[in-house]
């Protein structure tokens, strides 16, 4: 930014003299002054049990749809067909690996066969290291005493990922080729990713009935957007020159797609598959609420009796599954790259080895189909019992020894930061907060961001949940600040040292995929049923993303720049604050954006532990029929907050890059 100011030099207008931080400061001061004058007026509060006409209307719509289920042709000939097809798919996969079928007391393929297939496939698409990891991981499920649960989860995840990719990749290619399609699709994708699942869980079971189909479709709604977005991005990233070269050779559009665009974007598309798998695993516990079998059910049931140990054991299995699938797909993406570049000596050996491995695996499958010892995992999962009792002991110790400290931290942040900020947001007149948001959007993101902010503010008022929205916004903002603090500290640390990165990264992966339900009980014990507990849960989930992005940004600062400053004699602190962080500011903005979106996706979980406001509205709407409409409106409000901040931070990111 300094460079920009230099070139503008003496002809600077007032616009250039007023820096962005000054403008932001002025807006905030104006807000504070007006707040002092107008406090408590036009705050649009709505009590927990009260409804607006919009909420009642949404209730009616829901009832009408439910009543028409058996007669409406849309249901009879469209949704039912989809449901049947997906049900068949799920039942088929389950019969292979998880559920007893056709007179057999066990599934078609036993544990030995599944472990064999997992190892073989990982090796075939990745390398021998991930193959070992896969074999170890899958065996671990058995040792935990969770073989069948894990396989149920795997079956549902695989079915959901398959459906998500069948839909996602073609749509992604389309969005990659057509700007218009991309523009139309983006808001839908935002919606699918930020709308809380609780909101559509009940209607979904009405349409697709209780069972595998609903579980898969719920998962697909959440997991398909990454596949679509990343595929589109991959197609767009193919260098224009390559496409032009192909054009000049006279290729048809179809040839261009199949021979040029898809092969060149293969690596990125595989990363999309990776993200889809991760998103699908994030839905495991949610899907358990509509009777999806598997590890999620174990977690949810253990939570009813606050059985942290059992919940942790099952959560750990989900983490292991996620890490195995993540490493295998990442290795596959790497291979897609190297295979294209090298293609040398190894290829000659690869064929016979693949064939031999295939025969061996087929044999393992046969054995596991036929013999009991290979079909049912031996032992009674004592490892799982040990893990559970260890987790119980650890949490009890933490609760006994840390609760004084944790309560102090909670009180400092709640009284010092959260309460004043929340009061400022909820007790200001709605139009004042709205104007502030629009002005901030204009200063940080430009005119289009301001227009988006204005539209979102208007719609937010329309949902009838303005005050709850502001309460949620306050917690969200505090959580995002904490996420960014952690992100900066750990991100810089990891970015500067490869060793730290290696050590910390698995913990970050685990924090991202461990179902929040598992750690809610210890957090409740440590912080009570408060907004702060919700904030901590959100930070645990969102900080890893921010940390990873910042670490990446710091690492990408050119070596030469850092060396130059070192030679001038700068201290480490100076290098970090004057060089690495400023150069990585693109990464910082992206981290803010993603951190905020991830925090928002935890609003509903927060509602379960004392956050109140929008999160509670959504949960209550899921639980009580007469609050359904209000829950839906609250879900919309969360989406609106997400879209508003996403657009502002993205526009801001584009500006800092420019």
């Amino acid at each position, binding site marked *: 930014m300094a460079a920009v100011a230099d070139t503008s030099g003496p002809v600077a207008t007032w616009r250039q003299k007023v820096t962005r931080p000054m403008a932001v400061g002025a807006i905030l001061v104006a807000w504070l002054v007006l707040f002092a004058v107008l406090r408590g007026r036009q705050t649009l509060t709505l009590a*927990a*049990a009260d409804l607006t006409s919009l909420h009642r209307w949404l209730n009616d719509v829901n009832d009408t749809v*439910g*009543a028409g*289920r*058996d007669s409406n042709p849309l249901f009879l000939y469209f949704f039912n067909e989809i449901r049947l097809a997906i049900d068949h798919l799920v039942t088929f996969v389950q019969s292979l690996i998880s559920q007893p079928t056709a*007179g*057999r*007391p066990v599934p078609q393929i036993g544990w030995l066969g599944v472990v064999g297939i997992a190892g073989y496939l990982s090796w075939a698409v990745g390398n021998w290291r991930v193959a070992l990891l896969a074999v170890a991981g899958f065996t671990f499920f058995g040792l935990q005493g969770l073989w069948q649960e894990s396989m149920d989860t795997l079956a549902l995840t695989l079915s959901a990922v398959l459906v998500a990719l069948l839909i996602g990749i073609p749509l992604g290619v389309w969005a990659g080729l057509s700007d218009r399609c991309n523009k139309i699709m983006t808001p839908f994708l935002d919606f699918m990713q930020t709308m809380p699942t609780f909101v559509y*869980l*009940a209607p979904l*079971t*009405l349409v697709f*009935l*209780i069972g595998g189909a609903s579980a898969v479709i719920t998962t697909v709604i959440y997991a398909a957007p990454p596949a679509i977005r990343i595929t589109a991005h991959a197609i767009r990233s193919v260098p224009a020159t390559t496409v032009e070269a192909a054009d000049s050779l006279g290729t048809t559009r179809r040839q261009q797609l199949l021979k040029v665009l898809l092969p060149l974007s293969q690596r990125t598309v595989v990363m999309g598959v990776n993200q889809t798998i991760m998103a699908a695993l994030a839905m495991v516990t949610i899907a*358990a*609420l*509509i*009777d999806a079998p598997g590890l999620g*059910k174990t977690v*949810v*049931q253990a939570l*009813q*009796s*606050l059985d942290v140990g059992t919940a942790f054991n099952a959560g750990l299995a989900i983490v292991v599954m996620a890490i195995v699938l993540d490493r295998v797909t990442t290795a596959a993406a790497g291979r897609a790259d190297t295979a294209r570049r090298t293609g040398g000596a190894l290829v000659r050996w690869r064929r016979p080895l693949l064939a*031999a491995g295939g025969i061996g695996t087929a*044999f393992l499958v*046969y*054995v596991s*189909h*036929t*013999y*009991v*010892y*290979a*079909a049912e995992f031996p032992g009674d999962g004592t490892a799982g019992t040990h893990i559970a009792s260890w987790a119980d002991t650890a949490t009890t110790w933490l609760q006994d020894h840390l*609760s004084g400290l944790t309560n102090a931290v*909670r009180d400092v942040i*709640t*009284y010092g930061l959260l*309460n004043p900020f929340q009061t400022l947001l909820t007790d200001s007149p709605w139009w004042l907060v709205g104007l502030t948001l629009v002005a901030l959007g204009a200063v940080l993101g430009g005119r289009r961001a301001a227009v988006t902010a204005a539209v979102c503010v208007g719609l937010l008022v329309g949902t009838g949940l303005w005050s709850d929205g502001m309460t949620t916004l306050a917690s969200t903002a505090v959580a995002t600040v904490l996420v960014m603090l952690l992100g900066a500290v750990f991100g810089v640390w990891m970015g500067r040292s490869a060793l730290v990165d290696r050590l910390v990264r698995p913990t970050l992966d685990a924090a991202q995929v461990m179902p929040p339900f598992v750690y*809610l*009980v210890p957090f*409740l*014990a440590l912080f*009570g*049923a408060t907004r*702060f507990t919700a904030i901590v849960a959100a930070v645990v989930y969102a900080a890893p993303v921010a940390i990873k992005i910042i670490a990446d940004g710091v690492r990408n600062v050119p070596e030469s720049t850092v060396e130059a400053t070192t030679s001038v004699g700068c201290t480490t602190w100076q290098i970090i604050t004057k060089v690495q962080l400023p150069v990585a500011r693109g990464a910082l903005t992206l981290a803010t954006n993603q951190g905020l979106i991830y925090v928002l996706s935890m609003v509903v979980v927060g*509602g*379960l*532990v*004392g956050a*109140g406001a929008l999160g*509670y509205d959504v*949960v*209550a709407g*899921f*639980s*009580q*029929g007469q609050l359904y409409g209000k829950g839906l409106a609250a879900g919309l409000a969360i989406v609106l907050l997400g879209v508003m901040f996403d657009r502002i931070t993205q526009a801001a990111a584009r500006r800092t890059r420019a």
Partner: protein
Amino acid sequence: MARHWRAGAAGLTVLGLALTGCVGAKVGDTAAGAKNADGSCGTFNLAVNPWVGYQADAAVVAYVAQHDLGCKVTKKNLKEEIAWQGFGTGEVDAVLENWGHDDLKKKYITDQKTAVSAGQTGNKGVIGWWVPPWLAKAHPDITDWRNLNKYAANFRTSESGGKGQLLDGDPSYVTNDAALVTNLKLNYKVVYAGSETALIQAYRNAEKNKQWLIGYFYEPQWFMTEVPLVKVDLPAYTPGCDADAAKIACDYPVYGLDKIVSARFARSGSPAYQLVKNFHWTNEDQNLVAKYIAVDKMSDEAAAKKWVDANRDKVEAWLK
């Protein structure tokens, strides 16, 4: 050289495979299961709502249906709203413990006619405000609502904005607490914990660390066997005192918990329907089975077996 090595490896592999392929019992050797009584019962789809008391009901009913009637029981873990929805689509046959839910009754029994009542379970649902036992012992007069304002300052938390905190819990149940606080002129603020888990953990902490806590709770409830909470007396319930939701100033009624079945299931003549209809036990019975499950960490099946074996006479009465 390489060829020798390859041949050796192949030979060893074949040998290993041959060995593993010939030993061990075969799947299906011991013809396990597959002996369904006379088949008159068929499949029984039982909804399981997400709380341990219900889990106890379902465990026992499923156990009896399976072992005495030869039904194939499919348990479906569902929230209330979704379970009732299942009556219409034929995916749920019975809900075993319904707490009030007049809105659902109107929608599915009166309007859609997809569900019918199958009588009381015998359990009495008591909803109200409860305090941890240490508090009731230290300040015995706290169990009278008239004294609550005196203690309001002690119940202050970071969430309650200077007033006393009344911790409400699970959004599944109807609560009049906001209206009660206003109408009884209490200096309290209702704070929404958001889940039963959060409430139980709050009470557990309060009892252990001698913290002040008053909140919305209910029984039958397995947690009462761990921490016997003490109920605060609100102005007594009289029929009709809760007619106008905004003006409520009285305690919650005692709910006779009841069973709901799908209309189709009621007409089917399934022996499982008779079992559901006759199923009847006390709060103590349920709390005991719930304790087996939640505190002693027994499986549903084992908990049910233990209770059924000890209470054969009660079970026989359901089977008549």
